[in-house]
């Protein structure tokens, strides 16, 4: 009973975890992607779109939930990594664009779709995507810590000039990280729409993208930090939803809804008070201009 409740709470983990992983990847290479919220919405739409038009398979649909949003990673890379536009400004533009497109296309090309299928097999009543999310954190961790590619990514995020001087292609590295990152965000959104909500609705991301963005920051740009923060906020969100569903209202429901947001403010402030901006990739947000 307790166990069931717990597994149903952590079943939300892929949504927060994959989105944060996507944002983390880009930031580690030195690129802010603040359009997480919108790209997740677009991924959520893409997944349901693929489910309806390309055969009813959740797995294939999630693949498209990963593939379609790559376009926003490419756009961000073209505009910011290659052309040196401000990453934050472009990020806002992409947020508008992706979320607007998702909502617009939803009403024009997508009839109401109900995802009937569920993901199997389940282990401890959690579906494979949950374990794959943990696995992808592990894979990214191993790559970052123990491989040449990981060193490349970190070098590009910290000191692109030095990286360039030893023959690393700064642009290519940032392109790959940013684009893959957008894919992960889309995947997170498509998991939310296909598996958890079993369909697309307006504003389904409900600020989870912004929460994912924030927890990278107070994870101080370490992957374990991001992972555990994502897990912790999954629990917060889960408890929040549970409290509402169970009708146990110690507080008005509007106050319970914002528990994660308060949590972010407290966590970010604490991280700031305790250690400045320690861990932030030194060239995060800076355009690299090759001489």
């Amino acid at each position, binding site marked *: 009973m307790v166990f069931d409740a717990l597994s149903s709470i952590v079943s939300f983990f892929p949504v927060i975890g994959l989105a944060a992983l996507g944002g983390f990847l880009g930031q580690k290479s030195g690129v802010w992607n603040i359009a997480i919220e919108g790209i997740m919405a677009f991924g959520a739409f893409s997944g349901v779109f693929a489910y309806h038009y390309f055969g009813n398979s959740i797995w294939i649909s999630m693949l498209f939930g990963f593939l379609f949003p790559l376009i926003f990673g490419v756009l961000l890379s073209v505009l910011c990594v290659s052309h040196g536009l401000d990453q934050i400004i472009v990020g806002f533009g992409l947020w508008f664009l992706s979320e607007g497109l998702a909502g617009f296309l939803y009403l024009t090309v997508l009839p109401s779709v109900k995802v009937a299928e569920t993901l199997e097999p389940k282990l401890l009543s959690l579906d494979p995507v949950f374990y794959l999310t943990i696995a992808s954190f592990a894979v990214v961790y191993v790559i970052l810590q123990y491989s040449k590619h990981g060193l490349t990514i970190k070098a590009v995020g910290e000191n692109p000039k030095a990286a360039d001087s030893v023959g690393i292609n700064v642009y290519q590295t940032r392109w790959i990280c940013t684009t893959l990152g957008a894919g992960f965000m889309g995947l997170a959104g498509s998991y939310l729409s296909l598996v958890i909500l079993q369909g697309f609705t307006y504003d389904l991301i409900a600020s989870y993208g912004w929460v994912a963005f924030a927890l990278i920051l107070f994870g101080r740009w370490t992957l374990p930090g991001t992972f555990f923060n994502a897990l912790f906020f999954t629990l917060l969100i889960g408890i929040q939803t549970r409290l509402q569903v169970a009708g146990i209202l110690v507080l008005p429901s509007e106050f319970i809804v914002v528990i994660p947001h308060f949590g972010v403010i407290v966590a970010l402030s604490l991280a*700031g008070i305790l250690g400045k901006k320690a861990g932030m990739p030194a060239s995060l947000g800076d355009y690299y201009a090759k001489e």
Partner: protein
Amino acid sequence: MMISISELKTSVKAALYNVGILVFTLSVALFISSLLVGIDVREVFGFFFSASVGSWDSLLRVLMRTTPILISTLGLMVAFRSGVWNVGGEGQIVLGVIVATGICLFLDFPPPLLVLLSFLASFLASGAYGGVAGFLKARWGVNEIAITMMQTFIALALLQYLIDGPWNWGAGLYPRTEKIPLGTRLPFIAYPLNSMFLIGVVCIFLIHFLLTKTVFGYELRAMRSNRVAAFSHGIDTARLTILSMVISGGLCGVAGTGLVLGEYFRAQAGVSGNYGFYALAAALMADNTASLAPFAAFLIAFLYQGALGLTALGLPHRLGEVVIGVVFIAILLPRAVTGLRGI
């Protein structure tokens, strides 16, 4: 203001480019929409333009929407000028709505005093709200984008709580408060355009003056271009960060008050109309220049109102957001640092 010929040429060029982008994007968007829903393209164009600029009434409506966007745009510019990302305009507007509604509904003062108090208190409350984010950034380097965004969700939840709970009017189909007293409502210039519009116009000059003609404005620019250098030249960057956030949030609060006193006369769900987010786009499109703010705000209000008109054809109003997103990014393109690099 003296402008040289070459400057004039560049700005005319830029304006032509922006208008071209707008016309192109809008046409493509409307054309695709008509294909997707199978409605005659002429009808789609007709509905869009008749809802936005087709009649005197609809034009007034666009101007009515321009007002809150304009005031919050000017507010956000103050923060953006200093390199501080206040993205919580929406939350600050909502807080202004809450404060103004609360004062006008529950305080027993003469109406003119209530109006004055509403503006003052909402400026202070929303200013303080923004100021918190400014303080956290200045003191401990806490990321202001995340904080102000979270503050927005909290403010929206607070409004929802108030209109569902203690301030609920009990009548009507959807949760909302009672209407504020007649005496506290701002006069209309020409219905539906209310006198907040004039306050918006005054704000353009005020902020233009503040940003370009004062030491404060100069310090903001200095801080944006190089925080460390500004600090070492004796500019108190911490104070400046907090102050710019206070002014920024405060103006958004004023915009919120305007929505209550001039347009809705009450608090209800969706009263802030995402104006805070649109203002973000407007401020960046206008390149943080106060004199361009009215154009950017009008442009967005025009797209918003036109897209609303399309809902009569069964098209989603999100079309407006899509067009804004594309135009926004396209307007940035000339600011690209260099040609294509890398891949």
